[in-house]
């Protein structure tokens, strides 16, 4: 079942740059889709359009039913430095004026799921880059989204942190049956995480290739993963 569909979406910036042109794709409910492409191909713009933070200049974004609850994870953790991990994770609940006790419990549960049960009262400046990103994801999960939009969330992390976060993200998205649209420029990450990879062309961005991947259990050492990586890398090469 389709969750959303972009039809010929175009977007120009105020300075006249054409960021996206004729962007069309759909995303199925529960699917993990990666948008892969070079810097400046409009990947982030596409996410912001889907989030409804900006409006398309042309084309439409169609939802199957009402717009689902959404969360956004940015490249930077973008935490509030004056709030501890629990208060950061609680953000969406506070904005909905949910009772403090219940909001704390839900935020703590989200932090625990991200392995941060011992850091609920730590301030962002006391946390490492990987842990800050975990708080950021806990904040997204606490909002109980049906659609999670992620904009190169792990690009700034070291490889072991990134792999651990990739595995946790996959597990949690499956457990909660969250649809994920994941922007990245890493072939490996896209191949490992995604059910489907959409390769985008440079500005103005549009979909140049669509690769359905092996959707079984993930294993970095498996030949299935090696094959996925090869196919995605091939598609990226053909773009150049």
């Amino acid at each position, binding site marked *: 079942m389709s969750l959303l569909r972009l039809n010929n979406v175009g977007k120009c910036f105020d300075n006249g740059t054409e960021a996206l042109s004729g962007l069309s794709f759909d995303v199925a409910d529960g699917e993990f889709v990666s948008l892969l492409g070079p810097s400046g191909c409009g990947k982030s713009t596409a996410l912001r359009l889907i989030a*409804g933070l900006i409006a398309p200049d042309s084309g439409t974004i169609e939802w199957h039913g009402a717009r689902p609850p959404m969360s956004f994870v940015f490249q930077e953790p973008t935490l509030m430095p*004056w*709030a501890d991990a629990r208060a950061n994770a609680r953000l969406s609940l506070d904005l909905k004026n949910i009772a403090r006790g219940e909001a704390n419990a839900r935020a703590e549960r989200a932090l625990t799921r991200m392995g941060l049960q011992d850091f609920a009262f730590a*301030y962002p400046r006391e946390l490492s880059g990987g842990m800050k990103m975990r708080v950021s994801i806990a904040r997204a999960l606490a909002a109980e989204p049906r659609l999670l939009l992620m904009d190169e969330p792990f690009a700034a992390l070291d490889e072991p942190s990134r792999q651990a976060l990739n595995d946790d993200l996959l597990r949690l998205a499956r457990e909660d049956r969250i649809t994920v649209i994941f922007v990245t420029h890493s072939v490996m990450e896209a191949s490992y995480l995604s059910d489907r990879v959409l390769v985008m062309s440079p500005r103005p961005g549009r979909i140049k290739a669509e690769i359905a991947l092996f959707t079984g259990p993930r294993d970095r050492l498996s030949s299935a993963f090696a094959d996925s990586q090869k196919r995605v890398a091939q598609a990226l090469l053909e773009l150049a």
Partner: protein
Amino acid sequence: MRRAFNVLLPFALGFALLALWQWIVVARHIPPYVLPAPSAIAHALSGNFSSLMLSLLSTLTVTLEGFIAAWIAGVGLAIAFSQSRVIERTLYPYAVVLQVTPVVAIAPLILIWVGFEHINAALALIAALVAFFPILSNTTLGLKSADFNLVDLMRLYGASRWQILWRLRLPAALPHLLGAMKIAGGLSLIGAVVAEFVAGSGTATGLAWRIVEAGNRLEVATMFAALTLLAVLGIAIFAAFSLLEWAILHRWHESARLQQE
């Protein structure tokens, strides 16, 4: 040990300079109406202690009233600026005009308009004019410095304008506001002193007026005594705001980490 040494060092220097000052005045027979010795200043301070304390209280009251008025106007206007570009574009140039016009030049007008019968209100208003701009401009900058991705995230979660202001923009502006308060506290004192000078004798009773009055009588030691109290007041205001800044920011702000290292 090293820390105690660092704290004691400036005091030791001050003591040495005072001793040198005392020695020069005594040894060279410098007359007290040119340069009184530290001992004479101490004597003037203790001799006029209660009246000087009343003057200190008067200047402190004017300074704090001016500061509070500047704080309310500055923060209030900065919030209005953060909510509306039209308001900001319309009013900001006038705030700049107010800032660049020397307060000594505006003070006589304010004294006439507010009237010498409300002298303390006039003095506080002049102090407020001096302290106002740093609070306005820093708070405006701080409110705008909120992470725009966080603004977007809050909008995605359905936050209202006021929720974004209260939960994001105001806390993000706090470091800027607290820094501005340290500056504005000192400026408010300067404004109060300037206002007392302009108002002249017979109306105001603050420390600056005591300096003018003692100067007219060539009581230079009393001038120094009042000046010393003004300096102490300025230091106390700065220290109080520094402490407030530390108390609010030290748990989360990056500047606190720099101080620890």
